[in-house]
């Protein structure tokens, strides 16, 4: 480096770096109640993030119209996890340390939830995740969830396959690096076998793989009655397409990760998957949410939206019952949430922080739209 530039560049760098420490010296208190939200706004799961963000914004708007929380307006700080646990962790740290949020809504999906949960636990900030992997909440006091877990979902899908569809054999394909898909698959497999069925093939693929033909060829050779591939919507669409190309004839089954406007409805026509609510549900709170969301955003909410909305409701309810923004007080209030009328159903937490009374709806893809089939109660 030229001598004369060294004396300018180095001090300049030091100043720039030092000033980055001063960014966002905020704190709790003040004229507003700050709540954080983490979702994959960009990246491979962007429809999840958008739905979550829209629903949370709706919840914030509604609570502010009613006067806010603790007499102050609620301000939501959205952070993008990009679908990456590392970015999600950074986002959580920023929300907690720099923005001083009272609670965090999200993240989704489960692998980000798993990464962020310990941080919430250590910093004493309650977090309401919207992922379904059962490992996120147990043993942590500050981690709650606004939806049912894969323990329930896996059982639901296995029962549906065995009892309703009369399947005797099942094949499974899931993403190795996807905590959610892994847990649903394992629970599905064990439940299906307990019911009396046989899992004839259990294949995996690495994250971001685009070629599944090797695994699909194996599955095709095993001739299963049902083929369960609970990956997220983008992987599921690819898998479905290749399965059809290879001539794999089995009833396709999915899980709540399929719910997205970008799911390939054409290829997956006739498949069933599991969701957290049905758009035809007559329950008052569910209808109110669907109507409000459609009115505000011009499109119907998907299950990411409803989970995000309920997560926000849980957080707001806890803060208002705690009567303060102190982390421990909010946590205690949240843990004692009971029969909170949320959009999915009434939420009562068990000792892990999971809701115990939310139903699951089975949907079928037919002719480019999803239709309600039946409900499973826990």
């Amino acid at each position: 480096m030229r001598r004369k530039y060294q004396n300018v560049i180095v001090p300049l760098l030091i100043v720039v770096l030092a000033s980055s420490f001063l960014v966002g010296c905020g704190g709790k208190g003040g004229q507003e109640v700050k709540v954080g939200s983490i979702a994959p706004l960009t990246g491979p799961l962007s429809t999840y993030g958008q739905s979550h963000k829209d629903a949370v914004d709706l919840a914030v708007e509604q609570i502010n119209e009613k006067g806010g929380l603790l007499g102050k307006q609620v301000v939501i700080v959205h952070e993008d996890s990009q679908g990456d646990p590392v970015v999600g962790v950074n986002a959580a740290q920023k929300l907690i340390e720099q923005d001083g949020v009272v609670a965090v809504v999200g993240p989704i999906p489960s692998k980000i939830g798993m990464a962020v949960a310990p941080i919430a636990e250590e910093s004493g900030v309650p977090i309401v995740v919207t992922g379904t992997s059962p490992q996120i909440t147990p043993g942590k006091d500050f981690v709650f969830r606004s939806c049912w877990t894969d323990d329930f979902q896996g059982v639901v899908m296995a029962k549906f396959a065995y009892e309703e569809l009369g399947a005797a054999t099942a094949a499974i394909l899931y993403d190795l690096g996807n905590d959610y898909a892994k847990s649903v698959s394992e629970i599905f497999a064990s439940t299906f076998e307990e019911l009396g069925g046989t899992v004839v093939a259990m294949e995996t693929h690495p994250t971001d793989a685009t070629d599944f033909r090797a695994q699909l060829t194996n599955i095709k050779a095993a001739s299963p009655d049902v083929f369960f591939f609970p990956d997220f919507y983008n992987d599921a669409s690819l898998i479905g397409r290749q399965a059809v190309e290879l001539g794999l004839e089995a009833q396709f089954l999915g899980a709540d990760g399929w719910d997205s406007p970008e799911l390939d409805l054409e290829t997956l026509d006739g498949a069933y998957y599991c969701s957290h609510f049905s758009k035809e549900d007559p329950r008052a709170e569910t209808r109110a949410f669907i109507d409000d969301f459609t009115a505000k955003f011009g499109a119907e909410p998907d299950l990411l939206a409803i989970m995000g909305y309920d997560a926000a409701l849980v957080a707001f309810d806890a803060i208002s019952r705690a009567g303060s923004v102190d982390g421990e007080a909010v946590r205690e209030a949240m843990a004692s949430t009971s029969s909170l009328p949320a959009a999915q159903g009434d939420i009562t937490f068990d000792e892990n922080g999971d809701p115990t009374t939310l139903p699951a709806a089975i949907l079928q893809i037919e002719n480019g739209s999803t239709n309600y089939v039946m409900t499973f109660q826990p």
Partner: protein
Amino acid sequence: MEQFLSQLINGLQIGTIYALIALGYTMVYGIIKLINFAHGDLIMIGSYVAYLSIVHFGVPFPVAFLLAMLFCALAGVLMDRIAYRPLRHRPRLEALITAMGVSLFIEHGARNLPFIGPSFRRFPDVVGVKSYPLVSSVVVTNVQILNVVVAVVLMVILQYIIRRTKIGMAMRAVSLDLEAAKLMGIDVDRVIAVTFAIGGCLAGAAGVLMGVAYPRLSPYMGVMPGLKAFVAAVFGGIGSIPGAVVGGVLMGVVETFATAAYSQVAEGVFFVVLVAVLLFRPTGLLGEPIAEKV
């Protein structure tokens, strides 16, 4: 038996794509002894060029294919001109690090461009997929046939260029001995640019084939295939063109069979092969054993 055949077809499909990419790696290495880590990202550029021209400009598929190849050839030449040429006479490590930098630049740059963006894009269904039954329950799709045929045609054209044209002869000369070629009056910079262009062309073609076969585009889609193709090129003998083809196809087939056998660890098989090759036959299957001057 049918399963074996099915898996073989699967392996050939991905293997020919790896071969196309590996050719680019091997040609550039042969000529300037540089492993162009940014080569994988040319795949991504090719895919997106085809995607954008079909979706936004309504261009027919074959034209989009040629456009992608052209664009990537240009990108390859630009890469050389801007990033590698200034470092031609510097230690190879510098060019290697620069190559990684170029790769990151392309990936993150693409991610931030509004018409590419960080979210996945779906490649349009331009080749209506039809399955043809082969033997009992074994099917082969028209996409798979297209894939293999296009790849083979390109490789044949490449072989013709290398063996039967003057520029091909110049490329062979430069890869044998850069200084001597210069002394013989060959415009080495031009030859290198042509090599990058051809490598880019092939990568662009591979990108479009990938887009058709696995219709999910993302700014990082070239990373893994690039890495795997690099391993394939080393496996076949880096610097050897037949080696790249053999390496690519073999690795594609090996990967498919490994995935079929035990899908959980199948991805690791690539890197096990890489380590094994480097331990036991570092010059690869068809590479020339390097005689050391004592």
